[in-house]
């Protein structure tokens, strides 16, 4: 075997090794039990990838050249920590062993079809991602450039922080994805921007497993859970060749992990929920700047939803502090960086008139860009409106709404004008909210959940 197949096999082997280490690390995030199996599989990949990026980042920060054995050793150490600090097992509802009540013939026939559609969605995305080396402009200019530089130089060179040389690559962006690229290249022993794209269908698979698994645990039928996964798998605006290599697909996964963990923490669903929330906060904060904003939004939602003051503070801290710590590390290790694309001087009272005009322009641009997607938005609105109102769904919708509002309004501050920023970012940034939105919508078509949770799962209390 040679050429691309051999390279794909090597990348697949790296991903499987990281997922295996992540599976051990995920014992610190999930109780044992089959009802968590699908979610745990998705989280295992996330934990393995994050662990490798973390070790790579630690090496670069500490001035040590990363090597295959150092990254592997670090990931094994994280796995050992997971084994040493497992979440206590939780008895309770097991969707796989609970006999389905009144499964219709249609539903029984639909389930294999939904599974087939998931497979088709994954296969189509793999084709889009792997037909040619990653090529998106922002991959070349930002994510791939930094990853390749980190890998090839074994350091974070000063020129990547010099606006005169690298302003186009946004020194202010978090380094999670470039570190992941560098870690995978370190494990592979070479930079491979073609086979390396396998990372993205793998992240898609992890996202789908978490979505379906979490929905099942929240009381969704198999048909609803896997239908949601099928629709998401086929959602081309997110799983496109263009977005392969950029941070939107990983961020979409991180936001799903964050939203589901937040909901579990507020509902005290199991003893690992708060740990998962903290881990997802790290993932979101390490991938994009808006991850920190969404972590803050999650903390505010927790404060609004959780009646107990002590738990409110604990959940809010787990949601926000880890992402803040990532931002702090970025600043301490690399120095301050300004958001050069934005003019926040518009917030000064003397410029409120200009700001108002720009806000109108930004909203108008968003409406124009959203117009071609009206069938998708209409379907989502109908499904939302016809479903049942549930607190867990509302929490996820709150996160989606906060992110969407930020994505729509932020172009008002763009130095190059609202229309430019909206047209270059809005379709992909809002597309990254699809997994979270799919979970929120599918929940409204699911059964009751509260009785599914065993009482007294308050971690550490």
């Amino acid at each position, binding site marked *: 075997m040679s050429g691309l197949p051999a390279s794909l096999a090597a990348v697949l082997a790296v991903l499987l090794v990281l997922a295996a280490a992540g599976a051990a690390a995920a014992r610190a995030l999930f109780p044992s039990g089959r009802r968590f199996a699908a979610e745990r599989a998705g989280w295992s990949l996330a934990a393995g990838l994050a662990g490798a990026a973390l070790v790579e980042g630690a090496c670069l920060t500490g001035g040590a050249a990363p090597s295959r054995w150092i990254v592997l050793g670090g990931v094994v150490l994280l796995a050992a920590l997971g084994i040493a600090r497992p979440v206590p097992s939780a008895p309770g509802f097991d969707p796989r062993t609970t006999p389905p009540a009144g499964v219709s013939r249609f539903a029984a026939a639909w389930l294999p079809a939904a599974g087939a559609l998931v497979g088709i969605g994954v296969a189509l995305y793999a084709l889009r991602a792997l037909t040619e080396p990653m090529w998106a402009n922002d991959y*070349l*200019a930002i994510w791939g*450039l930094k990853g390749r*530089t980190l890998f090839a130089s074994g350091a974070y060179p000063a020129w990547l922080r010099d606006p005169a*040389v690298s302003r*186009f690559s946004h020194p202010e962006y978090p380094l999670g994805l470039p570190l992941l690229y560098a870690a995978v290249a370190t494990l592979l022993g070479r930079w491979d921007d073609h086979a390396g794209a396998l990372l993205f269908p793998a992240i898609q698979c992890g996202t789908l497993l978490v979505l379906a698994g979490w929905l099942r645990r929240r009381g969704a039928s198999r048909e609803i859970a896997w239908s949601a996964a099928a629709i998401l798998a086929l959602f081309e605006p997110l799983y496109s060749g263009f977005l392969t290599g950029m941070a939107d697909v990983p961020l979409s996964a991180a936001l799903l992990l964050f939203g589901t963990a937040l909901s579990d923490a507020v509902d005290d669903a199991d003893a690992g929920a708060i740990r998962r929330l903290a881990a997802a906060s790290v993932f979101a904060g390490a991938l994009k700047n808006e991850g920190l904003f969404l972590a803050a939004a999650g903390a505010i939602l927790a404060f609004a939803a959780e009646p107990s003051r002590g738990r409110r503070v604990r959940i809010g801290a787990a949601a926000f502090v880890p992402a803040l710590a990532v931002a702090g590390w970025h600043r301490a290790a690399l120095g301050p960086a300004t958001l050069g694309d934005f003019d926040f001087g518009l917030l000064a009272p003397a410029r409120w008139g200009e700001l108002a005009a720009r806000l109108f322009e930004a909203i108008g641009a968003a409406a124009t860009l959203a117009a071609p997607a009206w069938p998708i938005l209409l379907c989502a609105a109908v499904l939302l409106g016809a479903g049942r109102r549930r607190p867990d769904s509302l929490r996820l919708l709150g996160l989606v709404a906060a992110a969407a509002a930020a994505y729509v309004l932020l172009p008002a501050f763009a130095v190059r004008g609202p229309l430019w920023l909206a047209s270059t970012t809005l379709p992909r940034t809002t597309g990254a909210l699809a997994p979270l939105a799919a979970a929120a919508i599918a929940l409204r078509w699911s059964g009751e959940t509260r009785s599914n949770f065993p009482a007294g799962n308050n971690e550490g209390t």
Partner: protein
Amino acid sequence: MANASEPALHVAAYELAPNPVRLAPAPLPSGWIAAVYGTPPDGWTVVRTLPGGVLALPPGAR
């Protein structure tokens, strides 16, 4: 590369990483070497000839 587009800068930066890249007419920082398509301007020191161009230093550069 004179009059290069922004995407050309991005491709060049990616392909030459971890070496930094700037496009003309930005001034060449100290210690840098220019990749020039075609013939270099008068007064430049040619370091190496390449297919379609040269590696060269501007006047006064070391």
